């Protein structure tokens, strides 16, 4: 009897401690994965997956810098990641545990290695561009049939914005995306961290500010789909998800995504393991699972973002790999620009400018 009780206690104790060790906590962007993959991961590995979401790099960064977040895998954008690596937030990947690294696409790896030399810390999850999400019919109704639908003039010329305000315009609430865009429009270096150059973005933004309904980084997905707004400066895949929601709702709203003809910002979201991850082994298993060609293709087919996985391309749907809004043509690719992180002084200038644009003070 005593013996039995003892074993039972031991088993219970083992069971609970095992349950703790076998959890993987992932912190990813909202609307950014096919949820079937989550249960598939649990089935294949026997690990319990806890999946949380965020919608701004700033929130993620603050959690990382505070330390002890409890997450095993997080997904910052590359420029934010570069600074976080410097702060010592992440651990180097154990590449021996990641055989699927062989699937990755060298073109994208070359670009991300500017932020993470040698890709020692991170793998690419998705990449995309920042451009225009449009409710085609409403925009044509307001601006006329012949107005080009891929220029920054559409959202940065006050006379156009005044008309578009009648059907609603959202901008991303992300100064690190919008300010480089305005600089590109003005013919300045979008990657500049010179306060005098950044200040030039102020006047054009203030001029269109009265016609912008809201600055928000995730609401536009639904707002575009249900016809509440007609223009959003947003992320490629989010706009395409919005297009699909409108098709599902059969509400007659037709959404398109266009990168800017003047050149769009290219960003990439990277997966990393925090230095204080409670389960780095499980984290590696998750990364390796994501880099599986079929899994990565499932994710891209669902969220409409391009990925950095060469081997996944044969499993991609035609309307993903064949859509230049997702996998841009060579010509658009050469037109894309990237951005490096701001140092803390420049960041303060940028945030201050952003507050001024949003609130008028």
């Amino acid at each position, binding site marked *: 009897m005593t013996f039995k009780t003892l074993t039972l206690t031991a088993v219970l104790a083992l069971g609970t401690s095992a349950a703790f060790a076998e959890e993987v906590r992932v912190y990813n962007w909202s609307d950014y994965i096919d949820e079937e993959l989550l249960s598939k991961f649990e089935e294949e590995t026997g690990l319990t997956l806890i999946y949380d979401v965020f919608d*701004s790099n*700033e*929130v993620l*960064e*603050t959690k*990382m*810098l*505070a*330390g002890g977040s409890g997450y095993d895998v997080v997904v910052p954008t590359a420029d934010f990641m570069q*600074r976080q690596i*410097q*702060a*010592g*937030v992440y651990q180097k990947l154990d590449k021996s545990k990641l055989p699927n690294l062989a699937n990755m696409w060298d073109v994208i790896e070359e670009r991300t290695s500017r932020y993470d030399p040698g890709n020692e810390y991170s793998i690419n999850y998705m990449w995309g561009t920042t451009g225009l999400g449009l409710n085609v019919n409403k925009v044509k109704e307001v601006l006329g049939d012949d107005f080009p639908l891929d220029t920054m003039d559409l959202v940065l010329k006050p006379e156009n914005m005044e008309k578009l305000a009648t059907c*609603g315009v959202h901008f991303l*609430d992300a*100064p690190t995306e919008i300010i480089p865009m305005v600089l590109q429009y003005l013919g300045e270096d979008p990657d500049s961290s010179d306060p005098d150059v950044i200040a030039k973005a102020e006047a054009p933004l203030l001029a269109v500010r009265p016609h*912008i*309904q*809201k*600055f928000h980084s995730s609401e536009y997905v639904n707002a575009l789909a*249900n*016809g*509440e707004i007609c223009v959003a400066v947003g992320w490629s895949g989010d706009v395409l998800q919005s297009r699909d929601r409108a098709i599902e709702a059969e509400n007659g709203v037709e959404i398109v995504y266009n990168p800017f003809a003047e050149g769009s910002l290219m960003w990439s979201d990277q997966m990393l393991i925090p230095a204080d991850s409670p389960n780095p082994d499980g984290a590696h298993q998750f990364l390796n699972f994501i880099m599986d060609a079929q899994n990565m293709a499932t994710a891209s087919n669902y969220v409409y973002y391009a990925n950095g996985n060469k081997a996944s391309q044969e499993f991609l749907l035609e309307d993903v790999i064949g859509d230049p809004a997702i996998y841009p043509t060579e010509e658009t690719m050469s037109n894309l620009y990237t951005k490096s992180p701001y140092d*803390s002084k420049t*960041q*303060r200038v940028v*945030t*201050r400018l*952003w*507050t*001024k644009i*949003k*609130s*008028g*003070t």
Partner: protein
Amino acid sequence: MRRALLIAVPYVWLLALFLVPFFIVLKISLSDTELAIPPYTPTLDLSQGWAGIKDFFSQLDFENFVWLTEDDLYWKAYLSSLKIAVISTFLTLLVGYPIAYGMARAPAEWRPTLMMLVILPFWTSFLIRVYAWMGILSNEGYLNQLLLWTGIISTPLTILNTNTAVYIGIVYTYLPFMILPIYSSLERMDESLIEAAEDLGCSRLQAFWLVTIPLSRPGIIAGCFLVMIPVIGEFVIPSLLGGSGTLMIGKVLWEEFFSNRDWPVASAVAVVLLLILVVPIVLFQRNQQKQAEAEK
């Protein structure tokens, strides 16, 4: 001995839940930013003993508070928060007083039910109730659909993402904090005082103005403070219902903390906010004390 223990309890409470967190925030507000975990310096290193502590204190300074005076953003945000708080407190009073009055004048057997109706919404998550307002106030929302259907308006009103929506949200959320103290002071009122006033030649309105309002004043003051103090620091309602132009100190704090990663300046903003709030809180305390003494 027992007496000392009894007195100690509230002080320990105050120390653990107010003073210790306050000094932590104050300490961060005197630090400098750094790209590390945590993102500020210096941190106390006790392994070096006395020298470490001295070194720690020598690195603290007030430059973040000086910074707050150099940019007009901060005082404008404080003022704007104060303005929103004052206006919404007034609106809450305007809506809450008649409700409290009606409850206090209702037949005694109805009052528990009415009380329940005021408290009941609290059982639903605050966040869900604010999200519900987004559904009501949006351009395609229920309110606009109703108004369009009845023909009162021909184009949808833009309410969501404006200050109007913020006021609606605040009044709705904080209404019970206004109703309950006013109700409790009205309920205790002796109704024969009104009869006496009317006997002495007051009209009903005069009696209300000269008797009822002064007698319910403690409730009005308590309700106003209970609404105004938390509204000044409100963050959730303006960020969900307000537009990008709604400037409030809670939002500025968020930006310092998240966008600039500048915990020291964010902490300095919080310390100043606390100092601003201390004034009404002290006034409130005084009022409570006076009232307690008057009742003795």
